[in-house]
């Protein structure tokens, strides 16, 4: 059985209209980690709200409530819920009682008030001209710096509004969702098998993690597991993606402190991996390989071995490079103590992935909720408590080495057999799955009927981590912002969807 099989959904477990429902607790007695909040419609198109928590057990705890009128905000008790509640309101028009300043999140000035795309018709929505007010920090000598949405490099769009005193950032307000493409709505009515391609286009550099998470959610709905060979090859793809992403990030950090040798070397190592991947499976980023039920086609075992040799060469070169970077005094000077995200803040905001592990939160879906081939491999999850740029860089460097080792071990003992099981997609479908993507926990939840999806929700690690970034930036000088931002390495498209 898939490790992420959800418990049966309790209906009307608490009264959301009235008092706050009891937030689930983890084993340590603290409020459990929030995974996601999202809305859906039942068969008679009545709105429902879903809350998913990680209570430290094998499976996530999912709670579903039908909505009449409004739901009570939990954001004041659990800040991690803040963006989810605003998104819930934007998508479904669910009133969030008690939420301070419930302003639009995913829609900008151009979207008219009162149009909720997940419940209303969305053809020919008129262009509007609403107002948006940034938080104004007042006081003597406080200035504002506006950056974006179009940035200076080859990066995605987003807006940052800094309130500064001299060089020091007092407050940073994010305004994102410029790349919002209505992806969750696109899943509606789409064939289950076509959904993979939408999932692959959520976050381009993490496309394989999205494809696997989506496929696993469908497999979970059908109560089948992908064949062992497919799971093993998926592990290779997932770890490859992590390796490429971490190498690229460490190179990006070098760029942002002007260490060109490190930056150029990292792009060289990354490119050698992408070319090896192209030789092995015909695509540089493992697009179009994972599908519900396994893989679209088998990969040649000999080619996988060659691929794993290329990975081992690249990993050795990267480990050398990492030593050079970590031992360079000017880099230590810039990385250390820059952009500290304290552990309690990371915990309140339910931060995931390398950012969480760099702030002392011991969390990794691969180990805590193993899926696919991960229960047959051994690995350590690096955790450190400093929470600064250096900590995030070190976590990535250690994880890259682990990824390379896992690829080798799996490639050397690749199971044989088929790579695709047929799925029975008729009838009701209801499934979910979590995957540790390079940026952290990625969770797919879907519902469907007779081969077609009725709802697919994506909890992306970037959506979870973006709200934490401004807290790491505050009290730093504005010149360190690109470096701190890069050390979080969050996807705009993955967040905006």
């Amino acid at each position, binding site marked *: 059985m898939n490790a992420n099989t959800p418990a049966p959904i309790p209906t009307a477990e608490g009264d959301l209209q009235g008092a706050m429902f009891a937030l689930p607790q983890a084993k340590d007695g603290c409020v459990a980690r929030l995974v996601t909040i999202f809305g859906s419609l039942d068969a008679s198109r009545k709105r429902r709200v879903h809350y998913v928590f990680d209570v430290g057990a094998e499976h996530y705890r999912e709670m579903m409530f039908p909505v009449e009128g409004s739901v009570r905000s939990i954001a004041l008790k659990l800040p991690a819920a803040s963006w989810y509640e605003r998104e819930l309101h934007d998508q479904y028009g669910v009133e969030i009682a008690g939420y301070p300043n419930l302003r639009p999140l995913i829609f900008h000035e151009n979207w008219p008030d009162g149009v909720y795309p997940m419940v209303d018709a969305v053809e020919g929505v008129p262009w509007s001209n609403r107002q948006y007010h940034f938080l104004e920090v007042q006081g003597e000598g406080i200035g504002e710096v506006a950056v974006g949405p179009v940035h200076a490099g080859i990066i995605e769009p987003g807006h940052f509004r800094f309130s500064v005193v001299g060089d020091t950032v007092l407050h940073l307000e994010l305004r994102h969702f410029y790349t919002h493409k209505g992806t969750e709505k696109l899943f509606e009515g789409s064939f289950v098998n076509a959904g993979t391609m939408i999932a692959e286009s959520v*976050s381009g550099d993490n496309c394989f993690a999205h494809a696997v998470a989506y496929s696993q959610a469908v497999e979970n709905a059908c109560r089948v597991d992908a064949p062992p060979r497919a799971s093993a090859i998926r592990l290779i793809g997932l770890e490859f993606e992590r390796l490429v992403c971490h190498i690229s990030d460490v190179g990006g950090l070098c760029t942002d402190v002007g260490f060109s*040798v490190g930056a150029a070397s990292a792009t060289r190592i990354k490119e050698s991996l992408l070319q090896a991947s192209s030789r092995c499976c015909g695509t540089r980023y493992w697009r179009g390989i994972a599908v519900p039920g396994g893989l679209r086609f088998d990969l040649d075992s000999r080619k996988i071995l060659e691929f794993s040799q290329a990975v081992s060469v690249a990993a050795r070169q990267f480990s050398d490079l990492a030593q050079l970077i970590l031992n360079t005094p000017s880099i230590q000077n810039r990385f250390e103590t820059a952009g500290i995200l304290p552990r309690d803040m990371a915990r309140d905001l339910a931060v995931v992935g390398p950012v969480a592990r760099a702030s002392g939160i011991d969390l990794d879906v691969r180990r805590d909720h193993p899926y696919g081939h991960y229960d047959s491999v051994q690995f350590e999850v690096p955790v450190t408590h400093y929470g600064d740029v250096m900590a995030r860089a070190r976590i990535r460097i250690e994880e890259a080495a682990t990824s390379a080792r896992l690829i080798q071990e799996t490639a050397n003992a690749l199971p044989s057999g088929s790579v695709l099981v047929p799925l029975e997609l008729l009838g009701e479908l209801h499934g979910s799955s979590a995957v540790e993507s390079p940026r952290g926990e990625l969770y797919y939840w879907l519902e469907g009927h007779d081969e077609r999806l009725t709802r697919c929700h994506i909890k992306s690690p970037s959506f979870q981590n973006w709200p934490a970034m401004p807290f790491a930036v505050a009290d730093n000088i504005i010149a360190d912002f690109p470096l701190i931002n890069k050390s979080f390495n969050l996807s705009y498209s993955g967040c905006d969807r």
Partner: protein
Amino acid sequence: MIFEVIERSLRQPNRVIPVKALLGNCDGSRMPEVIVAQLTPAIAQRLVEVCPTAAFRIEEHDRRPRLRLSYGECIGCGRCFEPSKGGVVAAKSFYWCGHAKDRLVRVWDLDSRTEITPLPAEPKVARGQIHSLLGRALNIRQLDAGSCNGCEAEISALTNPYYDLERFGIHFVASPKHADMLLVTGPVTRNMADAVKTTYEAVPSPKLVVAVGACGCSGGIFAGSHAVVGAVDAVIPVDGYIPGCPPTPAMLITGILEVLRRRIAK
């Protein structure tokens, strides 16, 4: 310390891929090539059924059926390869980069099994030509109008030691005001439409606009979404198109040089 760094750099072999090996190369993109001899009406019908973005269509012309392939809509998923029984394979080389929109479409007559649209010339740029194409430098401003970041990853790769875009005198610049060319990725989202127009206006004339990727060329998988306005040319005028999901660095270089070649030939 610094000597160690310099020594490491010098020890690295030269990895630059020669221009000859780049132009027309599409390894890793899985763009489809139709083998016309294998094409039957039944196979053509199958292609239309499996294509998730309707890049393959069957049209009637003078009561003769024709197969139409629009590379602008193709996301290179490769789902057409297997059911085509050899009628469609991954292309070994690909010349449809940097052309006008109508040149992204190929049409085959299914009765006579012949291609009706002319093939583009093999992209060839000799060393001297590169200089005459560019004269001085070409400054590119990359603009993400709502992409998934896949195209950005490949565009960033252009500056790595394998592709080394700077050898052609092509640079990426930080401001549209310094740019000769806008390289626009993604479907244009509602939330980016204004910023795309403002950025276009900020580029001094004469300016070139290149739409990159399936989304930039046609809206791709996001065409028709309520949060998306459409392809890049729905918002600003476009001079050339580079298909692919995402286009590989070699396809991007082929496309950028082709747009320049066409501009100078005008």
